[in-house]
């Protein structure tokens, strides 16, 4: 219950004669806009001129890191594909041609249209092979072009490695465990699905 | 006018009467189309007659025929169209045609005044009220004419009666035909008003000799009392209109209640 003494009676301000003809307000407003007309503009000429990205950990387009020998760092463990909430990562593993790891991704595709840029893949990756870059101008002329394959993702690394260095360069391989011959492709596909 | 012309005029009136009767709302669609065709042919006949009558005078005869045809067509549409908005818009057409006729007759001020007052103010108000009162297109009120046969008879008999006297106008007397200039000058002198071609005393005319200046001079010299009364009348009408509409009027008929949710979109009876 609201008590009488709690009611605040707000008197409307009485306007002066000039104010009732809207004259001072209009003059004020016109001056404000006039000042802004000649002010320095806040926006930039975007494609030629880019703003410094204030947020360092911006989650933009993905990249696939290379190790120090220039090979793809991914070991095709399917952790990222499993972690992905929208199932936009498609990996096909194959036997690695290099001795220091079991598998490598024969095919690694990310549907960037489907991706929600949550960064879960980056969190899940045991070798820090997949990372999100600060690149935000993701454009293409068709849906097909928005499906990034391995080459393109590696190329993204080449473009952005100076912008954002790889987080943990010391992890380069995946320790081989047990029998390398036992992993069958069928299992891999099951995991991916 | 020769008697042949008069007879043809009467025939055209009869045709026009039939056309209006057929075209008035309430009839079949085919009747309305027939009415339109009859009406257009009557108008065309009138235009041809007028052109024949005026032939050889000067080029403005052509304009007269076209504008008169437009005005008559528009007037016919005003009274026969089932949608009031279209009636109002066709009336704008009539006003424009009549205004151009005025301009043709060197009454430029009146022509423009017609456009400003009629087309610009009165008709807009009409459209405003139509839109306020009748938002959903044609209603049952406009679907049927009231006593169309009698109305058409009365109207067109009046028309014929007026036109039957047109033959006795001074413009067709032999004296006028023989010496039009002298007769006109005599008439002008008898009226005591400076003729168009000879403006009055120059010192009294601050605006020069344009039509607007002359009409204004006439209004503010000879008719100044009448002009004041007209102004007073306008003021009274303004007050009266405000007083009429400001009152909260009890409705004789209750407004239809909102339909139940399932029936929204179906036809709602007027009361």
């Amino acid at each position, binding site marked *: 219950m609201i008590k009488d003494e709690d009611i605040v009676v707000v008197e409307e301000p009485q306007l002066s004669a000039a104010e009732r003809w809207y004259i001072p307000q209009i003059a004020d407003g016109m001056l404000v806009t006039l000042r802004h007309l000649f002010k320095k503009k806040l926006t930039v000429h975007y494609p030629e001129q880019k703003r410094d990205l204030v947020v360092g950990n911006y989650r933009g387009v993905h990249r696939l890191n290379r190790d120090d020998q220039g090979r793809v760092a991914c070991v095709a463990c399917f952790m990222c594909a499993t972690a992905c909430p929208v199932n936009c990562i498609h990996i096909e593993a194959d036997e690695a041609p290099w001795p220091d790891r079991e598998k490598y991704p024969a095919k690694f595709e990310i549907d960037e249209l489907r991706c929600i840029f949550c960064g879960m893949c980056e969190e899940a990756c045991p070798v820090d092979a997949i990372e999100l870059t600060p690149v935000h101008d993701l454009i293409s002329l068709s849906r097909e072009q928005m499906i990034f394959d391995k080459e393109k993702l590696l190329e993204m690394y080449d473009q952005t490695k100076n912008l954002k260095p790889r987080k943990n360069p010391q992890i380069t391989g995946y320790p081989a465990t047990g029998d390398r011959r036992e992993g069958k492709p069928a299992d891999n596909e099951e995991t991916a699905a | 006018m020769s008697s042949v012309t008069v007879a043809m005029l009467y025939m055209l009136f009869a045709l026009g009467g039939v056309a209006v009767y057929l075209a008035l709302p309430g009839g079949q669609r085919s009747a309305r189309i027939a009415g339109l065709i009859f009406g257009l042919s009557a108008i065309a006949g009138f235009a041809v007659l007028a052109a024949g009558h005026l032939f050889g005078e000067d080029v403005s005869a052509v304009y007269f025929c076209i504008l008169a045809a437009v*005005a008559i067509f528009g007037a016919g549409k005003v*009274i026969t169209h089932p949608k*009031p908005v279209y009636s109002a818009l066709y009336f704008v057409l009539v006003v424009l045609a009549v205004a151009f006729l005025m301009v043709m007759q060197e009454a430029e001020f009146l022509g423009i005044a017609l456009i400003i007052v009629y087309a610009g103010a009165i008709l807009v108000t*009409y459209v405003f009220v139509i839109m306020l009162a009748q938002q959903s297109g044609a209603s049952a009120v406009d679907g049927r004419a009231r006593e169309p046969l009698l109305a058409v008879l009365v109207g067109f008999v009046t028309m014929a009666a007026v036109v039957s006297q047109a033959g006795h106008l001074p413009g067709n007397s032999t004296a006028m035909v023989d010496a039009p200039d002298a007769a006109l000058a005599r008439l002008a002198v008898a009226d005591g008003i400076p003729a*168009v071609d000879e403006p009055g005393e120059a010192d009294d005319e601050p605006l020069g000799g344009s039509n607007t200046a002359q009409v204004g001079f*006439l209004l503010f010299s000879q008719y100044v009392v009448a002009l004041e009364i007209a102004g007073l009348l306008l003021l009274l009408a303004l007050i009266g209109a*405000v007083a009429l509409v400001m009152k909260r*009027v009890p409705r004789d*008929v209750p407004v239809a209640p909102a339909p139940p949710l399932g029936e929204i979109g179906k036809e709602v009876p007027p009361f």
Partner: protein
Amino acid sequence: MDSLTPYVILGAILFALGMVGFLSRRNLIVMFLSTEVMFQGVIVNLVAFGRFHQNLQGQAFAVFLLVIAAVEAGLALGLVVLLYRRRNTLDAEAWSNMCG
């Protein structure tokens, strides 16, 4: 063009058409529109007469007619709005009953 007859006939036609409309239509607004058509006929005649007599009195009268038309439109439309509020219809026959 000095001949008066075509103008008189045109005026008569407009006037008569307006009369037909006034008598036969049931919508109040269209009835008033019809009276405006009659005004047009009269104005055509007045100006033609004035031109025929080589003076401006016809035009002066037409100016007064314009005033009357404006007055009529204002009051008539006020009335129409009033009547429409009462009966919720524009039908003139809704008011043909004189019992009050």
